């Protein structure tokens, strides 16, 4: 068993990763609650945003700040467009179908990304915040990591507050409980849903930007990082934002703190899967019967 | 014969069944009551979807409540649902046969039993027809056929006539009336259509807020003042 000092450096790494996962996790949960769509293309959307930012900086020599904003906006707009077309078409369908459709979107984006940004080129996206930093004990921390965690916390708290106090937020929560009744209460369902799509898309873009810097700017890697997010969202049973945040942080930490333990270090990638499966089966609880037909409908 | 004693169901504060006590001897028995009186909950207890917090159910001497739900069909319990549940992608024959497969009856008797059941309900279409292509009336009849195949002992019909025009309801009524005699099973019929109930049921029990407020010969029960009161104010639309 390695010494405490060799664990320390992995704490900021884990926290930063966790913060980024929390960011997209919150977006994912909010969207699911408002529209019943579990967006599995979250990672792909963020990845494409980050790649666009890369092209703007390296090919068109746009100032970094503009590119970063573009990345986040791209996430919002693309998600909104998808929501306006397929979100509505599939509104009446089973959550399973809605989620499966987003897998289609993920594949579509993955293909497009590999086409437009072939892996022959090695890419990287560095935020200015990488340069500054400070040390805590054995651990070096740079501002990007701080931002990741801070942003994660801020977004979780902010969104939770937003859902509580604002009119739009209340409408979203109402939608999550019962859309028919909410509609009859005269809530502009479509506008509320649009807001949810756009907002969650912005978070996807932001998360993509952070992960591209903290992790790596590779379309496939970023696309499938969504599994970490899904895992966190599942542990929160697709409801509680706070639990999503905590779960994301825990996943990030566990995944990293296992690293120095040589005996199991290579199996650390199983962290999100194992945690999510355990959580799901634990929460599965008693079966309640639905008269709905099973499968794709 | 089925005896229900102090059957109580609790969902948190709500009490859909409150010490329900009633006995159905034989033949076709009605179970009526305003919406939310607990009729369907009672059926769900019998078929095992709801676990009662107290009380007992003895059917032909056996304790139903201790059996796992899928065993009860083997025992001889049949049930239809308010929303018809005939399987769309299977043919009429297969629909009925799949019930038979999970009954006590032997494989050898299957074909004759199934065709017999389809015959019994007087379904106008061929047994190879896919149920997905049938009209509501025919689907309802298929459901009844499913309920009577394989020597059932207890048949629960939950609003079998829902959404049927009178003429067809009448035909359905005749079929239901014939079940006890020809199939030799006890039938419990839940329906809001009083004509159907009085046409089919010798005896009838009335549930209101989970309590049996009246039971006996259908005619008397329907004249009972408590029953009138229970129904007044709650407009019954089928």
């Amino acid at each position, binding site marked *: 068993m390695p010494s405490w000092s060799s664990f320390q450096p992995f704490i900021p790494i884990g926290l930063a990763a966790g913060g980024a996962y929390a960011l997209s996790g919150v977006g994912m949960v909010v969207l699911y609650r408002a529209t019943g769509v579990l967006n599995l293309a979250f990672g792909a959307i963020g990845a494409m945003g980050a790649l666009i930012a890369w092209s703007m900086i390296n090919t068109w020599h746009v100032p970094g700040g503009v590119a970063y904003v573009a990345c986040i906006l791209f996430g919002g707009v693309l998600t909104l467009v998808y929501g306006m*077309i397929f979100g509505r078409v599939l509104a*009446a369908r089973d959550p399973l179908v809605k989620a499966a459709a987003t897998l289609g979107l993920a594949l579509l984006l*993955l293909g497009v990304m590999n086409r437009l940004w072939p892996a022959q080129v090695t890419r990287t996206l560095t935020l200015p915040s*990488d340069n500054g930093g400070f040390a805590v004990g054995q651990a070096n921390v740079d501002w990007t990591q701080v931002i990741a965690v801070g942003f994660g916390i801020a977004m979780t708290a902010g969104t939770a507050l937003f859902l509580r106090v604002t009119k739009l937020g209340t409408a979203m929560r109402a939608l999550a409980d019962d859309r028919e009744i909410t509609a009859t209460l005269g809530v502009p369902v479509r506008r509320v849903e649009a807001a949810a799509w756009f907002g969650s898309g912005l978070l996807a873009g932001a998360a993509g930007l952070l992960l591209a810097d903290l992790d*790596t700017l*590779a379309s496939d890697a970023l696309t499938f990082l969504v599994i970490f997010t899904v895992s966190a969202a599942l542990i929160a049973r697709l409801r509680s934002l706070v639990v999503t945040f905590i779960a994301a942080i825990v996943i990030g930490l566990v995944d990293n703190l296992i690293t120095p333990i040589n005996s199991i*270090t290579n199996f650390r990638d199983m962290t999100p899967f194992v945690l999510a499966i355990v959580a799901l089966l634990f929460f599965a609880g008693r079966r309640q019967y639905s008269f709905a037909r099973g499968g794709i409908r | 014969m089925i005896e229900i004693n102090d059957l109580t169901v609790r969902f948190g504060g709500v009490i859909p069944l409150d010490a329900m006590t009633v006995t159905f001897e034989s033949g076709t028995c009605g179970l009526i009551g305003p919406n939310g009186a607990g009729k369907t909950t009672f059926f769900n207890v019998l078929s095992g979807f709801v676990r009662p917090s107290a009380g007992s159910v003895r059917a032909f001497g056996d304790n139903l409540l201790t059996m796992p739900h899928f065993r009860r069909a083997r025992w001889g319990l049949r049930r239809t649902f308010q929303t018809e549940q005939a399987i769309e992608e299977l043919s009429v024959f297969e629909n009925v046969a799949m019930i038979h497969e999970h009954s006590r009856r032997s494989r050898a008797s299957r074909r004759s039993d199934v065709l017999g059941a389809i015959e019994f309900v007087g379904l106008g279409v061929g047994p190879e027809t896919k149920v997905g292509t049938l009209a509501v009336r025919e689907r309802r009849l298929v459901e009844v056929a499913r309920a009577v195949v394989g020597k059932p002992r207890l048949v629960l019909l939950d609003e079998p006539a829902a959404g049927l025009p009178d003429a067809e309801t009448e035909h359905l009524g005749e079929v239901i009336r014939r079940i006890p005699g020809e199939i030799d099973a006890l039938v419990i019929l839940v329906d809001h259509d009083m004509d159907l109930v009085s046409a089919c049921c010798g005896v009838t029990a009335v549930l209101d807020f989970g309590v049996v407020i009246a039971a006996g010969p259908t005619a008397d029960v329907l004249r009972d003042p408590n029953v009138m009161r229970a129904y007044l104010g709650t407009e019954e639309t089928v």
Partner: protein
Amino acid sequence: MGEEKAQMRKYLGWRVRVPFALIAAAVALTIVVTDSGAKTAGKAHAAAGLACGLGTGKPATGTPILLGAISVKQAGTDFTDIPNMANAYFQCVNANGGIYGHPIKQDLLTDQTIPSQLAAEARQLIQTDHVVGIAGSSDIIDCAVNSSYYAQQHFYVLEAGIAEQCYSSPFEAPVNMGPRYSADGATQTAIKLGAKKIAFDQSNVPGTQYNAGGSKLIAAEHHIPIQFLTENAASINGATAAEKEVQAAGPGGAVVLVFTPPVALAILQGAQHLGLQNKVIWTCATPCNTDFLSNALGSTWNHKLYVNAEMNDIHDDGGADATLYLKVLKQYGSSVAGGIGSFSQFGFVLGQLAVKALLSIKSQVYTAATVNAAFHALKGFKTDFLCKPWYFGALPNNTDYTTYPENGVMQIVPHSGCLPIDKVDPEVATVRAYEKAHGV
């Protein structure tokens, strides 16, 4: 229920079918525009003054000579720069008289590291397309899957190798050293720079022990402890991997990276996040030798990363080959997305080798028999990209260079000269003996 759905579908009609029609149209159009031309890319437009092949300046118009190549192209791993650069050189040759009037046509098949797919593609090239030779391949498992098939077909393959079989089959001749011997070089450099301990990290894919074998012997020879790590490249977190490596190497230690450029970059980026540039000596196998990586890392990595480069650096070497390479890359290398770097240098040299062999065929009859004989007979090929003349053999490239990043480009480490791979690695010893015996 049926009707209801049917209605829904009708209602969906206009709203959904239209987007799909648009998407389909867009996709089809883009394919036509971008891809359909892929096979016949880069027609032979005249290029005066480029000494490619015969260097006549006249476009070749004869019956084309079909050369095959297989290369990996998938998310995260794409080596097509190598065949593409070879093809760029072929275009240049075709614009300058070709092979006595015959243009060279490249038949490139890409794969996603699926064994059955590679087996099928090798058969497609040889038995269906009837290529007369295979030159410019670069794939992760091509040698492993197909070397026995090539042997059976008597095809002598010119490639940039990775798998172990590329260096043991008599029918394969690589221009590069591959992960094992390049890692050997990186380890030697680390030891030369006084590493107290070595942490050797690579992707967790088959052949890890083979890749690590040489370094193990070299470290043992110098009594330096060495620890072997592996990463799951598919889901790597750079910072995590970097910290792990630095901890394994310990103070005064060195890290040897054996990864594809994207993964290596991810790790070095991670090191940057944690400010680990100065904690250890960073060394890397050949894939790190690309200006893109140097550029991406920025000046904080100046002289902090020692790369074992299997090919000479083109910046401070003004030699004829380097100049031509840059010109060809500029004029014909539009498909070489990676730009300047070891990969495109491999492709360039492979192109030169193929052309040299083809031009050496006296009969000027270009069949699988003659071409492969010519490939097999290649020897004494001098280029300023390589320390020693190249010949068709198991490991012809066994002495190479060392580079490091400097302000966005890779530079030869001053006075580092040519680094012979240590012959404690048995294969190297055999090769040296062979070279001595045959005087190549």
